[in-house]
């Protein structure tokens, strides 16, 4: 009968107990290891530097079209930069990615570059191994930091540190089904639409017998639920927090007005409530929803469907502001050679020409304003009809969500408030004052 030899196992366990497993790592020990050229501990080095040639690792969550596009770009970079090899790895989708990144950070060996959600920025910024990019940006005027849109720059900055380079930017615009509008005899939305016109149309487009809704809203109490409300709040002239950032600001008259709009539409059953699985897109594609507040990520699907669609900016109460959800490329310190290589790659990746290549392949929005001046831009806009509206709409994304480590808690609180109104369980004033109370408590806590 076979038996595994236990001795190696016991020895290893004792060794483990002796050196202990640390929960966090200042990372200092790694820096010297990789710079000297030796590959890092373990059978799979995540990067290294050997006599002028550096390998770096990039973690991202691209799938399908974007995965293919990224692979193409990485291959192009590797070809044109013989002294650097970029190793791109898929790290899972959405929240799973965070757990994987946290595990890597705990183990003291994060990747050189990682794609991270903008909402994680304030927390990730507390990691000592994160590389603040100010030194690179200040040393290189050709990089032109101001070419990135204001909302992006806000999300990439924590305090005085620039902690990442914008990887993705988007915003919310109004997508509508032309056929349904014609059937209901309503004039199509325009760039000067107001809330009352929007509300009116949504109600008119609702038809219970045909299982048709005027609007759709993601109602899973996550950030998806919250950020649409923020757009409405800003359009009504409100702000999320008080100017000093210490108190809730959303329970103002503007906030109540925005919430009341939701309540009105709910009472007419005009909203298709999506439970978070993004079914609203399929329902829209089948012609059962009149209008969506959505971003360019849905465009490829909408184009493929048979819906005759149109795109315009969001309706205004006092302004046409929209909200943007930028994500960042973040760099971790694994030694100066790898840091330099990582910067070279990021600069190349986010340069106007390469970014235009990316957006043309994927239908994402350009991260730099100067991309719209490039000759190939027209081709891009033509390839994805309507994308131009979103691209221009970036100028309406003037505000950003508060950059505080407490934001996720604030988001959950508001998400519940919005959800309670959408489910008809609370009235706007009630929901908002309760939420404000909770948020004040969150902000006051250490």
């Amino acid at each position, binding site marked *: 009968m076979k038996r595994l030899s236990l001795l190696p196992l016991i020895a290893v366990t004792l060794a483990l107990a002796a050196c202990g497993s640390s929960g966090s790592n200042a990372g200092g020990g790694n820096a010297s290891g990789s710079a000297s050229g030796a590959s890092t501990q373990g059978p799979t080095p995540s990067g290294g530097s050997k006599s002028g040639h550096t390998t770096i690792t990039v973690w991202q969550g691209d799938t399908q079209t974007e995965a293919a596009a990224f692979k193409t770009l990485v291959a192009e970079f590797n070809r044109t930069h013989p002294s650097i090899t970029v190793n791109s790895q898929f790290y899972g989708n959405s*929240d799973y990615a965070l757990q994987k990144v946290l595990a890597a950070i705990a183990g003291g060996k994060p990747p050189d570059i990682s794609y991270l959600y903008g909402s994680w920025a304030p927390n990730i910024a*507390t990691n000592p191994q994160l590389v603040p990019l100010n030194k690179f940006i200040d040393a290189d005027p050709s990089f032109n930091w101001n070419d990135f849109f204001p909302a992006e720059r806000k999300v990439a900055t924590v305090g005085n540190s620039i902690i990442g380079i914008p990887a993705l930017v988007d915003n919310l615009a109004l997508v509508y089904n032309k056929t349904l509008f014609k059937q209901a005899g309503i004039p199509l939305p325009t760039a000067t639409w107001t809330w009352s016109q929007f509300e009116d149309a949504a109600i008119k487009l609702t038809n219970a017998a045909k299982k048709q809704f005027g609007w759709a809203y993601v109602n899973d109490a996550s950030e998806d639920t919250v950020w649409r409300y923020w757009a409405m709040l800003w359009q009504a002239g409100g702000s999320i927090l008080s100017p000093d950032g210490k108190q809730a600001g959303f329970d103002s008259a503007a906030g109540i007005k925005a919430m009341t709009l939701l309540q009105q539409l709910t009472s007419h059953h005009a909203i298709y409530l999506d439970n978070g699985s993004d079914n609203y897109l399929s329902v829209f594609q089948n012609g059962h929803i009149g209008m969506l507040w959505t971003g360019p990520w849905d465009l490829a699907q909408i184009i493929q469907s048979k819906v005759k669609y149109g795109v315009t900016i969001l309706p205004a109460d006092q302004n046409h502001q929209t909200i943007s959800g930028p994500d960042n490329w973040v760099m971790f310190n694994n030694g100066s050679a790898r840091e330099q290589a990582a910067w070279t790659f990021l600069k190349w990746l986010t340069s106007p020409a390469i970014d235009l290549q990316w957006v043309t392949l994927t239908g994402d929005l350009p991260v730099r304003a100067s991309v719209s001046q490039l000759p190939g831009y027209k081709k891009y806009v033509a390839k994805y009809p309507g994308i131009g509206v979103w691209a221009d709409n970036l100028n309406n994304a003037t505000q950003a969500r508060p950059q505080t480590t407490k934001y996720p808690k604030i988001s959950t609180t508001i998400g519940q408030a919005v959800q309670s109104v959408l489910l008809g369980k609370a009235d706007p004033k009630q929901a908002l004052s309760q939420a404000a109370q909770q948020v004040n408590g969150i902000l006051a806590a250490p």
Partner: protein
Amino acid sequence: MSAHSATPLAVHRRPSLLKRVIASDHLAGWAFVTPAVILIAVFAIIPIGWSALLSLQSTNLIAPAHYVGLANYRALTKDPAFRSAIGHTVVYTLLFVPISVGGALALAVALNRKIRGIRFYRLAVFIPLVTSTVATGIIFLWLLDPTFGLVNYVLNLVGIPQQQFLQDPNQALYCIVAMTVWSWLGFDVIIYLAALQGIPEDLLEASEMDGASRWSTFRSIVLPLLGPATLFIVVWSTINALQLFDEIYVTTRGGPLGSTTVIVYYLYQQAFQFFNGGYGAAIAMVLFLAILIVTLLQLWVGRRRVYYTS
């Protein structure tokens, strides 16, 4: 030489201490469990210890942590959201365990026969089990969609008004119970089936020949003999039910209005959404203690009521 001194003196000498120790049950027992103990110690017990330490810290799992003693635990006692989570978890468990154990028993008995196609039926019961949680979540989200779902369509045909199901704070948790019972029934069924194989036919036939009805045979012979399996399934189902997470994650995400936020989901929110690693670990430790107490209670009851046939 007398005949009855044929046995050599050696037989009367007691075996050496070493030989006795080696032959002893204690050494044998520990030798048998050692591989398992080492693996579990390294890959489960040490990590749990690490988490216990984490529960005494304040950390976002990113920056270096600092110790705060029992502060996390004290905060838990004052946390109304945690109390809600406990309530939801308890309700869920009290529904899930009896329904799934009872249902599995009935189904296993039904599947424990040699009619034609029994393999197909067994396979059918097994299928929800192997269906990934993601796929199960998607299916149920579709089935229970208030406007377009199949269930409301059928209810409509018999005149019942549209239900909100997973979008209704009062119904969502019960829908989750239904979904998880459906998913996990096969698990308990195959364990019961394996246990039923151990009951000899002649016993059942003898009882029936004695004139006992099928039902009383079942109650007085089969059920007691299934005691060990039942204890196992009840303990395991309880441990699992108290740690419900995946199904919530792929459907309601703790909503609507927090009505399906169970303890582990709350823990996940704290640790991986709010970046409160230490607080999450404290929740885990409290849950661990609760499960331990419940399990010990169940095992104690089992010790007195379950009949092992040897």
